[in-house]
């Protein structure tokens, strides 16, 4: 059953008047609209949803990289409102909540970091949902979102000495394309670098 997002929004506004929550409409046919939550109230909003609206299952936490705000505009997960006028890229975390007792969902929440550099921070929701523990570590590892308040924020998939965040759109993979009999596109470019005589 799909979720009544308007009611959820009203409930949040009524219970947490200070929380910055705005609706984002999804232009696609999936009809999954989302709530953009301000970082300072994210944990409170999730706790409210869990305790009072029975959204007890945090199913999925995704990280998304938006290096180009114009692109984000084009894709229109940016809705109307204050956030459209961003100048630099940012990282986004998307939460998908379900209710096991009411059997509704997904309630989609989004939180955004200020930028992609040092301030790529989003509050951790592990204190509300344990299921976010490994997923947040994964997003930290692959996107570099720093989850403030996460009890054990270490790399999870890559090794500890690794410095990059490979799922970012501007990540450059190490070049070891040496024996490539069937190269294309960027692999071709990299393979050619290894055969200078031939290029």
């Amino acid at each position: 059953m799909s979720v009544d997002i308007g009611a959820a929004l009203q409930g949040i506004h009524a219970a947490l008047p200070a929380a910055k929550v705005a609706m984002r409409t999804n232009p696609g046919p999936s009809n999954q609209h989302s709530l953009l939550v301000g970082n300072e109230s994210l944990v409170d909003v999730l706790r409210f949803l869990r305790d009072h609206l029975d959204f007890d299952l945090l199913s999925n936490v995704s990280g998304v990289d938006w290096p180009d705000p114009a692109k984000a505009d084009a894709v229109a997960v940016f809705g109307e409102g204050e956030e459209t006028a961003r100048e630099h890229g940012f990282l986004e975390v998307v939460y998908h909540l379900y209710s096991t007792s009411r059997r509704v969902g997904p309630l989609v929440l989004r939180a955004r970091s200020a930028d992609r550099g040092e301030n790529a921070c989003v509050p951790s929701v592990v204190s509300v949902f344990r299921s976010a523990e490994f997923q947040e570590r994964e997003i930290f590892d692959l996107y570099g979102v720093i989850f403030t308040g996460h009890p054990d924020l270490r790399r999870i998939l890559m090794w500890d000495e690794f410095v990059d965040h490979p799922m970012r759109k501007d990540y450059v993979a190490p070049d070891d394309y040496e024996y490539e009999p069937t190269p294309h596109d960027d692999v071709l470019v990299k393979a050619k670098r290894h055969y200078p005589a031939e290029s």
Partner: protein
Amino acid sequence: MISDSSMPYSAPTLAPGADDDQLLHVSLGPQHPSTHGVFRMNVVLDGETVVSLKPVFGYLHRNHEKIAEGVTYLSSMPYTDRLDYICPLSNNWAYAHAVEKLAGIEVPERAEYMRVILAELTRLINHTAFMGFILGDMGAWGSALMYAFRERELILDLFEDLTGARMMANFMRFGGCRNDLPAGWAEKCSVLVDDYGPFLDEMEKFLVGNEILLARCQDVGQLPKETLINGGITGPMLRAAGVNYDIRKAEPYGIYERFSFRIPLGDKGDCYDRIMIRFLEMRESLKILRQALDQLPEGEYVNPKAKIRGFKPPVGEAYARIEGPKGELGFHLISDGTVNPYRYRVRPPSFINLTLLEDMCLGLDLADVVIILGSIDIVLGEVDR
């Protein structure tokens, strides 16, 4: 309702420096017989009792999501086979389901039936193999696994006939399936469904009454159901603890509403319940299969409007999930209107089911850790992606 205090983040570990030399630090894996692949656990043992257990992932992190963001939507389909490589067809369906939601594609009725049949056969494969693997974890010399694989081969023969591959089916397409059922396939499948009941009886006789298995599995690894839900646990593990949550019923996708079947629910949620729930689920799957095979309609096997080449879904995002054999398998897709997905995220049940591994294992024996890990039923392709 769960309060924060009832869920300490990190389970009690030893105080730093406190008689540390009495403790044995063992690294189980990544090459270890019972880690089901290349999973690793850093275990601290006091004698043989676990006082701390930290999972280490990533030994099979093969960048599925990154690769998928660089190729077309269709090209990701064969990669989904390799997520949970014991049940590729469920993964196919979950991904096709997500793309269909993203692009608003209708699926013809026959294709829906075919999908249900394949997904339930996959569930049979997974749960049967699970029985063998968990017995192996308990130290049995592979007989259960052999019997499980004996039946698995029969199902794989069916898959090979239909999809062309034993494991990596690459069969579902956006808006249907790749090809129609070959002549006589449904009849062969029907025979298999009839023969599967006796095999399950045999397995049940082999395992369920076994006192050693009872002693090993009962009261091992249970947690309160609120903790399980909060930890994001889904699938048979959650239902073994008595939570009535099966996506086939809770949020029916495909045509599951048309079939009459029941959701088995356990009580305690220990390893024994997890085994039994899977047994009972297989019997329910057989019921679904019987109904689906009887009702299988004629018609299109793929939506003729769906494109194979140059497929571009409209701008938007979608999260869709199915009840995979291991739990909730979801795909989160963001489309920017080009041929490649902008964001492609898999919600892997095995990975998130591991969240509470440490909580389950603390205070138990090393031998129990192996069983608990087995009862979670992980596949590393999905855990690390």
